[in-house]
């Protein structure tokens, strides 16, 4: 007789379910993606494999030997103790990620523009101390350009007042400022020796936010043909806070992971990171199945590596600062096994 299996909710809390209930959660997660986003469902054998992973009583699961993927990670330069370079070194030596990323606690290109020379100094020291690739990363953070923090109109205030044209104009103005700042910081860190630049959480403020990142990537690619550029997304769908913005003839509002990949790859990035946000009221099995179904169309369309975002609250990993290893390892294995990802 089947017994209950320990699994997790999207907030990390423990729950016990029967294997058949976990299978139902997986099927419901796939169905949620198919219904809402009009993507193809997972194949039967893929669902069977996910069921094997999520009904396993093991505390920890992993991919098969030889199936390992590259792990890039944002925010590795934030120290628990000591300074940023020490944190990067410890990540290289102890955690053994494949890349690390120098970043500021205020993970925002407009914020770090004013301290770029100090970030350059830290990057130079990191390059002398570490052997593995050291990237630099931050967010486009378009909202920072709106009043009262920035100089342009606040579209979040203008839109509810139905001042649509003013809201759109404010976002277009912010895009120009953001592109200039991102290019400035990226070139400064490249000059200091960064092995690559990460535009993380692109699209967090909507289609204008993504457009700014894409234009910065295009600009950098033209000027620096050898620059490694990673673009990680904010969520599974690009919000149309402007609604009419296009890149290369493609409307950005409403883009799903496959469409996001296509514009990022066309802009000249070398790694793409899709992100699917977690529903904390659903199980990890439901969230992972939904995330995998949404990201699967990326894999056939990708000409560049795809590193799926599987940090806190994305990709199926619980929305918890201390995500349980039983849940994280299942998400890790499930995404790699089913999607045949290039990295996480």
């Amino acid at each position: 007789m089947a017994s209950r299996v320990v699994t997790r909710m999207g907030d990390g809390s423990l729950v016990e379910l029967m294997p058949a209930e976990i299978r139902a959660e997986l099927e419901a997660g796939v169905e949620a993606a198919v219904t809402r986003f009009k993507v193809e469902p997972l194949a039967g054998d893929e669902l069977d494999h996910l069921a094997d992973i999520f009904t396993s009583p093991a505390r920890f699961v992993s991919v098969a030997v030889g199936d390992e993927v590259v792990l890039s990670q944002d925010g590795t330069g934030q120290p628990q103790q000591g300074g940023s370079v020490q944190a990067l070194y410890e990540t290289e030596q102890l955690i053994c990620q494949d890349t690390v990323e120098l970043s500021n606690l205020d993970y925002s290109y407009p914020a770090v523009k004013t301290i770029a020379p100090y970030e350059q100094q830290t990057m130079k020291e990191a390059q002398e101390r570490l052997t593995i690739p050291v990237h630099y990363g931050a967010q486009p953070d378009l909202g920072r350009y709106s009043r009262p923090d920035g100089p342009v109109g606040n579209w979040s205030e203008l839109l509810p007042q139905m001042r649509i044209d003013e809201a759109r104009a404010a976002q277009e103005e912010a895009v120009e400022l953001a592109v200039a700042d991102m290019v400035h910081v990226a070139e400064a860190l490249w000059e200091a020796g960064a092995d690559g630049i990460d535009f993380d959480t692109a699209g967090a403020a909507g289609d204008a936010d993504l457009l700014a990142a894409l234009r910065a990537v295009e600009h950098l690619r033209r000027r620096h043909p050898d620059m490694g550029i990673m673009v990680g997304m904010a969520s599974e769908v690009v919000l149309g806070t402007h609604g009419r913005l296009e890149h290369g003839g493609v409307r950005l509002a409403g883009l799903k992971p496959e469409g996001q990949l296509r514009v990022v790859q066309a802009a000249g990035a070398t790694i793409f990171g899709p992100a699917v946000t977690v529903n904390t009221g659903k199980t990890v099995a439901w969230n992972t199945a939904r995330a995998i179904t949404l990201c699967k169309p990326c894999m056939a369309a990708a000409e560049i590596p795809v590193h799926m975002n599987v940090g806190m609250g994305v990709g199926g990993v619980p929305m918890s600062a201390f995500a349980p290893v039983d849940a994280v390892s299942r998400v890790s294995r499930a995404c790699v096994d089913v999607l045949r990802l290039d990295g996480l």
Partner: protein
Amino acid sequence: MSIAHTCAAGMGGLRAAGDLVARLQMAKGMRLAEAKQAVADALGVGVRDLSDNQAMHELRGERRLGRIYEAEVSYFRDPSPLEAKLNIEKLLGLELNGVRALRERLGG
């Protein structure tokens, strides 16, 4: 969370050869299979060996590509990170940006 991902699915970074594969992905936009094969060919090993920290620790030492330090073993003859990166450049046929910046500072 990082440790869980590393143990569940990671190539092992400097413990194995994940950093070398990552360099080809980021710099060249190579998909995983292509990047793994290129590194394996350059090292003269099989693709599966790239994640085998036992095999790669020895090989990285022989090829002077840098490796993790273990408190119980002294590797004082191992290369410094910048020396290791010069060797990685030759291995992968890739100019590493950190080394390029150093060359600029040296004036050549």
